[in-house]
């Protein structure tokens, strides 16, 4: 496997780990946020933290498209399937996320709603063509990576004059979310998370390039390394961040240069720009309302906008009480800090999105590091009375 096995080489990993140990200054702590859930899972799946010195910490960010969708938008999707009787198409993980009263799209499906899992927007278009008497809604979620396929679907539906296809647009933007996290201490000092740098999302950067992260270095004085998803990519990126911190440099570096350029995929960007525009604000699970952090469909393509075609009722949406997903998504808490973790919340009985999504932090801790996490939780519980 060209470009995969090379990035999992045990000998190279050992060498890199030795260099990191040698260069990490034992007098300081390094807190690096991996924004993207894909990095979180790569770190856990390969046990990358086992090769890091004790003073290098990974802070898990909100970069999971399933996790950050607020319950209200999920309830809206369920309502589309329930009340409007549409064929609701979605990517798989979304089906299991609990909405208000723990009702998920999967539950709605079992109760008779027509909810279908698809692998691409083109599958949803195909379903629309095959069911001309039904309205088909694609629940579009994700960061800049999944936006171009949604744009393409609308473009194609428009060209084919498909009258029964719409997109329920929940596409969000990474730079705005990172900016919001860094502004959080100003908004609420309790929320201050010490961050010494970012592992930048690489799949996102294949589309938007590395340039949109330059404000992090310029304005916020935070080093960024756009990092690939293989374990050696992550380790090399950590080393690059350590070197920036040690040398007092603040730059956007591109470790994933085999795929990412500064400018990104301009054709995809043009397509996205033609179909979508920036919303004034969008609610993120965990982050609250974040200005200019999501996209909506331009007026020209309003015919393909589910929010315009269907009336969605005002309702009260509630997350599961005691679920710490919001704080975990901000990097303020870790899964072990949630009372529900491993207790009532497991991948089989998820209470929050972080446990459902294949990219969620809680799912990563549960799947790959359960023994240690449960032991830590038990130890902290035993200590409590003495404190």
């Amino acid at each position, binding site marked *: 496997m060209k470009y995969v096995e090379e990035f999992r080489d045990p000998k190279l990993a*050992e060498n890199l780990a030795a260099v990191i140990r040698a260069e990490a200054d034992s007098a300081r702590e390094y807190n690096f946020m991996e924004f993207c859930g894909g990095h979180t899972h790569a770190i856990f799946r390969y046990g990358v933290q086992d090769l890091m010195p004790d003073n290098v910490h990974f802070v898990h960010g909100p970069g999971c*498209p399933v996790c950050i969708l607020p319950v209200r938008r999920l309830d809206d999707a369920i309502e589309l399937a329930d009340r409007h009787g549409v064929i609701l198409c979605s990517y798989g993980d979304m089906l299991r996320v609990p909405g208000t009263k723990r009702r998920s799209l999967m539950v709605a499906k079992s109760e008779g709603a027509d909810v279908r899992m698809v692998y691409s927007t083109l599958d949803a278009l195909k379903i629309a063509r095959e069911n001309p008497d039904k309205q088909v809604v694609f629940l579009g979620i994700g960061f800049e990576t999944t936006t171009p396929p949604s744009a393409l679907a609308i473009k194609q539906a428009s060209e084919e004059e498909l009258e029964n296809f719409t997109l329920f647009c929940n596409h969000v933007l990474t730079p705005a979310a990172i900016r919001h996290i860094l502004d959080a201490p100003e908004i609420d000092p309790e929320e201050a998370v010490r961050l010494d740098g970012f592992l930048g999302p690489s799949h996102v950067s294949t589309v938007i390039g590395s340039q949109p992260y330059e404000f992090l270095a310029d304005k916020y004085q935070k080093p960024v390394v756009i990092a690939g998803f293989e374990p050696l990519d992550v380790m090399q990126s950590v080393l690059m961040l350590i070197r920036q911190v040690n040398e007092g440099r603040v730059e956007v570096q591109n470790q994933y240069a085999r795929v990412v350029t500064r400018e990104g995929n301009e054709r995809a960007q043009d397509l996205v720009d033609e179909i979508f525009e920036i919303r004034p604000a969008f609610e993120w699970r965990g982050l609250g309302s974040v200005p200019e952090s999501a996209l909506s469909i331009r007026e020209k393509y309003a015919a393909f906008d589910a929010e315009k075609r269907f009336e969605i009722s005002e309702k009260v949406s509630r997350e599961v009480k005691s679920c710490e997903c919001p704080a975990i998504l901000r990097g303020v808490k870790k899964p072990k800090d949630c009372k529900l973790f491993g207790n009532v919340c497991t991948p089989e009985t998820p209470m929050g999105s972080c446990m459902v999504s294949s990219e969620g932090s809680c799912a990563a801790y549960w799947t790959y590091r359960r023994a240690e996490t449960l032991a830590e939780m038990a130890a902290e519980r035993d200590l409590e009375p003495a404190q």
Partner: protein
Amino acid sequence: MTPASKARFRKGERVAMSHGGGGRAMADLIRNIFAHHFANPLLDQKHDATLIARPEGRIVISTDGHVISPLFFPGGDIGSLAVHGTLNDVAMGGGKPIALSAGFIIEEGFPLDDLDRIAASMGEAARAAGMPIATGDTKVVERGKGDGVFITTTGIGVVDDAVDIGPHRIKPGQAVVLSGPIGDHGVAIMASRQNLEFGTQITSDSAALHHMVADMLAAVPDIALLRDPTRGGLSATMNELVDGADFGLIMDEAAIPVRTEVASACELLGLDPLHIANEGKLVCICDMDKVQTLLDVMAQHDEGREARCIGEVCADQPGFVRMKTAIGGMRVVDWLSGEQLPRIC
């Protein structure tokens, strides 16, 4: 299909409700398709129940329902799979096969041509395995109430008194042996289901393992455990073993064989080969000093040519399956939650 078989039903004929009605149509279907392909002395007794001579040793029995889409896939079909799946379950109990029963639930409108192909493949697999199909059942359900064909098979076999295979014999220090590369079946099915093309065709590993198992038991009669890592893949099999047990398992990622094309497909789709189904592989737990003997025996069979020792039974962290990762870290190997799905981004 042979020219003779073409005359057994009309071209383009489909299964009708009458084929399950107990009348002449059903008798014709059984005679022209099932009896034609399965013919053997046991089935030819033509009783409602088949009599089998009492064997020496203990009886092992296993049953399995087969519901697969698509029915025909690279490397096999539901017919051969229905034989191999149950036969292998019997073999994992240390059993030598005696006979198989087969229950068919067929959807109205299913092409007889396809049913004939499935029965032919099933008959051939049973003959090759030396496990005659001794009895069967046919039901037809209305169109829309099935998915083409469902097949339930029950296999019986006989186990030598000296053989004692089961989780109760697993203890720390023993070795875990895997018979070959994982993930072939699941990826082949997924690729044909989604019409994915990967450049090279990935074929299912569906195969009968009882001949290899017989040789393994002849060489190492005190094998502690045999399991075939089918649905849920290697991770589910390993987790089943540690569930509630007073031992844990440690695997070595670098030792677990995965074909390059399967690994590439998994990378592309964001899947983990550990969770992907196999139909022709086994996991064996035995004393560490017997590993080489077993590997030598397994190497004599196509099904075991790429066998490896992939880990060991440990006393610490009981109830957990852990894995030393390819880059030298450690992680838990968990059950799969729900269905394994490709990544979103």
